[in-house]
């Protein structure tokens, strides 16, 4: 009989959702938590922790969505997290209860994971999800029998149609989880005295937990070196082959599950061909499959560039006029300047991305949700392999169009390290949405909006920038494949779930929560930089300042209004040039002169090392600092009218603009990406190599571009 939990209910508790990939875990999570979701990080790694707090009566429940996994033996980074959480290695996220989700139509595999959790001894309940597809395939499960066999509560649901969700809510609010008796006799796995010793040292509850610790101690960054060495010594002394034990455990477990399934599952053979199989004939077709994929990519691009242009223009205009009206309302002074020239343009520079990012996340969400993404993996694997990439690299690379950070994080489900490392190293070369405003502004300035045949020249150049990124990805990956020497087997095992219609509510939730995270994370950095920038652009060493101002020629008394205006402009220019940031820009000018840049662009290069989108706000700041705000010119128009005071020519000609775009396409100008690469590769080696190669690539390519076009 199952051991019943203490009747004393916890007033605050944590429930972890766990299950195989594609069993509807996230749907259940969304149904339970709605828009309350938050995203955090697990200590020491960047795997997203999606969680939400629910108030149920006088209790506070935190629901955590864990990455999908087939077993608690980790093969990929995602699975390491599951392993760590379930084994209580990470004290801050140890769940009080586990809600294990099983796909009713593949019970065997689901129960494999469930029974492993049972053996760990965690209080749990089982959700049998996707009852609709199971029924279509002639599968019936006697839930009560299953309950009797496992000794933990079992609920049948169909989360897509909301069936059974109330049952889950009740189960959670009443804390009806039960601590199971072990499913297998795991005491036989390890020598008894060894597991006793381990249990004592790490205060573990049973031999299965001890066994888990042994199996993975050397991959676990949370363990101290001392503990690690101790484990290594003990295991060495006991002398046994952990791999063959694990193989035996796997076989025994499946055999035991088979016995349970014979009692609880009824199958009727349904000959009907599944709709998914028919659709796969189309979506995986030799030629048609790729045509569809290409079409979908084009649709995404169209959406990101064309559809989002309208809200983006509105946002841009809004911030320009906000700046103007605020400066009219507030009294003149340093603080007002900071607000209108530093903070408002800074915030505007990030808010303007929201439409694009939200759209991209929505599309990615739909592709994932319908089951199409794994078809792309299937289609692309063989093509990506010669480049040292993997079918699964397609997902990080496509996400990289939105932002390299979720892209790099999505590489975690690539099982082998070499493929994954190469993917991480090249993903930032995909043209992310932060580059888009840079491209948009520069193309608008330098490329005429004429048509070549049916195509708009500006659009073609934009497409060219994206293709340039893709080519750079492939070439760099290929070089890395030749350079990196790892003795590791590259493999691909990916389940292709049933095709389904997207659940729009879930898409909206994902879009909302991901965009929110992105905007706030990036926003903090950008706002801080905008303020620092404004300060550096406003102040400078006083002696240099006076000297520069004095050098400006004062027009004679009674000069024409035009001359007075020019004087004013030259004065402001001199002021900026002698500011701290002007000095920095001047300092690097010799290095960037061959690329066609002046010192003002130099300033933008320096500040946008932190984040590319800062280019726009830097330009906004630099040029608002130089002139009055009330003319409400948007950034593009301001830059277009910028003239080199010495030569009288436009600063942004075609060669400079193209060179600058190429520079922004390749340079590693994103501190957040570097931070993520650091965390994902667990050291500074790879992010440093990445920064060096990308910057070199950017410099050389921009130089070539400038020479070609000037």
């Amino acid at each position, binding site marked *: 009989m199952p051991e019943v939990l203490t009747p004393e209910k916890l007033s605050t508790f944590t429930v972890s959702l766990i299950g195989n990939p594609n069993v509807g875990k996230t749907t259940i999570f969304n149904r339970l938590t709605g828009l309350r979701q938050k995203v955090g990080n697990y200590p020491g790694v960047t795997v997203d922790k999606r969680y939400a707090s629910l108030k149920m009566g006088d209790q506070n429940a935190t629901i955590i969505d864990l990455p999908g996994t087939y077993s608690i*033996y980790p093969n990929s980074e995602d699975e390491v997290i599951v392993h760590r959480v379930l084994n209580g290695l990470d004290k801050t996220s140890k769940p009080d209860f586990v809600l294990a989700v099983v796909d009713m139509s593949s019970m065997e*595999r689901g129960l494999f994971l469930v029974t492993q959790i049972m053996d760990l001894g965690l209080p749990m309940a089982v959700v049998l999800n996707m009852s609709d597809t199971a029924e279509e395939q002639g599968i019936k499960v006697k839930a009560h029998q299953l309950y009797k066999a496992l000794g933990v509560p079992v609920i049948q649901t169909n989360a897509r149609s909301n069936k059974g969700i109330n049952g889950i809510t009740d189960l959670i609010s009443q804390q009806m989880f039960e601590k199971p008796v072990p499913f297998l006799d795991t005491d036989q796995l390890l020598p008894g005295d060894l597991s006793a010793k381990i249990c004592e040292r790490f205060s573990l509850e049973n031999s299965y937990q001890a066994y888990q610790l042994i199996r993975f101690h050397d991959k676990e960054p949370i363990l101290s070196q001392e503990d690690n060495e101790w484990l290594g010594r003990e295991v060495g002394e006991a002398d046994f082959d952990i791999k063959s034990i694990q193989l035996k455990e796997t076989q025994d477990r499946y055999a035991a599950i088979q016995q349970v399934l014979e009692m609880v599952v009824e199958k009727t053979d349904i000959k009907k061909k599944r709709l998914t199989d028919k659709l796969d004939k189309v979506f995986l077709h030799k030629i048609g499959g790729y045509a569809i994929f290409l079409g979908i990519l084009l649709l995404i691009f169209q959406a990101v560039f064309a559809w989002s242009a309208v809200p983006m223009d509105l946002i841009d205009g809004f911030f320009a006029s906000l700046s103007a009206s605020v400066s009219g309302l507030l009294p003149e002074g340093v603080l007002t300047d900071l607000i209108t020239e530093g903070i408002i343009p800074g915030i505007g520079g990030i808010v303007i991305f929201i439409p694009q990012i939200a759209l991209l996340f929505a599309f990615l969400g739909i592709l994932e949700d319908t089951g199409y993404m794994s078809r792309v993996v*299937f289609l692309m*694997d063989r093509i990506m392999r010669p480049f040292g990439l993997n*079918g699964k690299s397609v997902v990080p690379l496509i996400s990289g169009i939105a932002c390299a950070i979720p892209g790099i994080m999505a590489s975690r489900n690539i099982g082998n390290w070499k493929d994954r490392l190469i993917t991480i190293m090249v993903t930032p070369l995909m043209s992310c949405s932060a580059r888009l405003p840079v491209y948009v502004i520069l193309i608008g300035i330098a490329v005429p909006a004429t048509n070549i045949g049916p195509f708009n020249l500006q659009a073609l150049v934009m497409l060219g920038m994206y293709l340039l990124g893709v080519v750079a990805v492939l070439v760099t990956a290929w070089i890395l494949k030749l350079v990196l020497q790892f003795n590791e087997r590259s*493999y*691909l*095992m990916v*389940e292709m779930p049933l095709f389904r219609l997207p659940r729009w509510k879930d898409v909206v939730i994902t879009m909302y929560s991901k965009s929110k995270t992105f905007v706030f994370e990036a926003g903090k950095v950008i706002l801080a930089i905008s303020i620092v920038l404004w300060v550096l652009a406003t102040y400078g060493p006083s002696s240099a300042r006076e000297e520069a101002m004095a050098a400006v020629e004062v027009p004679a008394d009674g000069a024409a209004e035009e001359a007075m205006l020019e004087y004013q402009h030259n004065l402001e220019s001199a002021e900026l040039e002698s500011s701290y940031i002007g000095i920095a820009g001047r300092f690097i000018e010799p290095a960037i002169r061959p690329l066609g840049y002046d010192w003002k662009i130099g300033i933008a290069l320096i500040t946008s090392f932190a984040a590319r989108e800062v280019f726009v706000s830097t330009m906004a700041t630099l040029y608002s600092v130089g002139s009055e705000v009330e003319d409400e010119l948007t950034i593009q128009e301001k830059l277009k009218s910028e003239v080199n005071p010495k030569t009288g020519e436009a600063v942004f000609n075609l060669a400079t603009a193209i060179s600058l775009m190429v520079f922004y396409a390749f340079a590693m100008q994103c501190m957040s990406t570097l931070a993520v690469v650091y965390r994902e590769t667990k050291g500074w080696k790879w992010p440093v190599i990445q920064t060096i190669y990308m910057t070199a690539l950017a410099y050389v390519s921009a130089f070539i571009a400038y020479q070609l076009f000037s």
Partner: protein
Amino acid sequence: MTTADTIKIGEKAKILKILPSELTLNLMEMGFLPGKHISLLQRAPLKDPMAFRLENTVIALRKSEAQLIEVILEN
């Protein structure tokens, strides 16, 4: 010895065993177990990877992984 990479589209086979390799456990965790029936649904262009039907799931494997699955053809 027949391995799963030689199955033709539409053909059915029964898994005899998973050959020893570092991927043996991964394959078993995914549900490739002795006694199970598999069939080949699709091959990607360039014949690789292959999409196998395993009971109610479809799993894509590369040829090199399919070579680890020893099978006996059934029709």
